[in-house]
């Protein structure tokens, strides 16, 4: 059974380590904050200028001066801090952020990512995505394996305008966990009850399939 968006977030949350500073992009990545294992401490950064971001506020506690990069109202946790945009991207560019999770339209087997523009159709801008992918050492892409038309989003080569090159290390989709290696897409785990052939069929580009492909463990 393919994962839903919450399960993708749950699987990515397993990549969090105690003491990590984490930047979560808009969409599925935002959901990762809901599944932080109880036994570790992490801090979430939002590039508009806050570290120590907490959950969405209760009704009546929302504050126009307190938002995340998706312009949603947020709260802060004890130990939080605010800073300007240059400082915020200094944290990113200076590799002080330990893990970046972001969405993508396409990822290719060289680790290039496209997630900001569909020429002639959709131009929302790159926001902080180009800074994040150019600087972070530890980038996980959270996305569906195929687009709405059923086309593979894991490609031999991205066809959409790029956000960055040689940057994606790991991809978690509704079907699989896949690492980007020098030899191609390395299949690491499959979603519960999803067979390898289904992953292969939905993947363009070179998929390296080991003899044993373990199933993701989502309940723990």
């Amino acid at each position: 059974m393919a994962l839903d968006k919450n399960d993708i977030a749950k699987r990515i949350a397993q990549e969090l380590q105690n003491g990590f500073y984490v930047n979560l992009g808009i969409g599925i990545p935002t959901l990762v904050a809901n599944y932080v294992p109880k036994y570790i401490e992490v801090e979430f950064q939002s590039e508009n200028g806050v570290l120590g971001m907490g959950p969405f506020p209760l009704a009546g506690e929302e504050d126009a001066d307190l938002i995340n990069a998706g312009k949603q109202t947020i709260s802060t946790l004890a130990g939080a801090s605010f800073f300007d945009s240059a400082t915020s991207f200094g944290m990113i560019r200076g590799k002080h952020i330990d893990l970046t999770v972001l969405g993508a339209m396409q990822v290719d087997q060289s680790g290039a990512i496209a997630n900001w523009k569909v020429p002639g159709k959709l131009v929302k801008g790159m926001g902080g995505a180009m800074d994040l992918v150019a600087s972070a050492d530890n980038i996980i892409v959270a996305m569906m394996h195929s687009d709405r038309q059923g086309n593979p989003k894991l490609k031999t080569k991205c066809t959409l305008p790029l956000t960055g090159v040689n940057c994606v290390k790991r991809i978690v989709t509704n079907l699989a966990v896949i690492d980007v290696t020098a030899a191609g897409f390395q299949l690491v785990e499959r979603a519960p009850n999803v067979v390898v052939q289904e992953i292969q069929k939905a993947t363009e580009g070179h998929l390296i399939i080991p003899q044993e492909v373990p199933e993701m463990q989502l309940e723990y």
Partner: protein
Amino acid sequence: MITKTVADVSDALQGIESGKTLMLGGFGLCGIPENLIKAIADSPFNEFTCISANVGVDDFGLGLLFQKKKIKTLIGSYVGENREFERQMLSNEIKVVLTPMGTLAEKCRAAQMGIPAFYTPAGYGTEVAEGKEIRSFQSKNYLLEEAYQADFALIKAWKGDTTGNLIFRGTAKNFNAVMSGAAKITVVEVEHLLPVGALDPNDIHTPGIFVDRIFQGATYEKRIENRTLRTI
């Protein structure tokens, strides 16, 4: 003390005319200079080049300037929340320069700090790199990006004193703090204008030297773009 106060928004905008380059603080609708934007929307001037991370929504923030067709060139980063802007962009009525957000912030900071240009890895290998100098440091590739040249920086702070010292609130610090002093003239509107001495020097985020004009904003709507709540 040196006094930076001006009486109102129209005094604050002395010297603004068509074709000027404006930096506008704020992220989304958070920390935008509401009073200055409204005054420019109501002015007879147009053909502005605006440097702003985002473009507001259709009927608020920078959206008011697009409604009135005041903007000729937009230099921004994330522009997905304003349909009138999108229409003007797709019909080539305006010129749009999309810039990685960290690069945009640093181009402001460089202008503020007197640094003409800097290298950043953001955009390497993408269309953002087209026509830019590329240089390798420790076997990683970087683009040369230049500081912005702007005529006015339009800033919003939470508290300020009459000599221009500023304190921001929450995530409204964003581009306001890096655009202060980054243009020829920095104009600041504040929610609370206080006499000199009322602010503790330990608490100042932006020293008054970066500010040329300061005034108390008449009203603040402080609209929330994406009100998201939890229930428990």
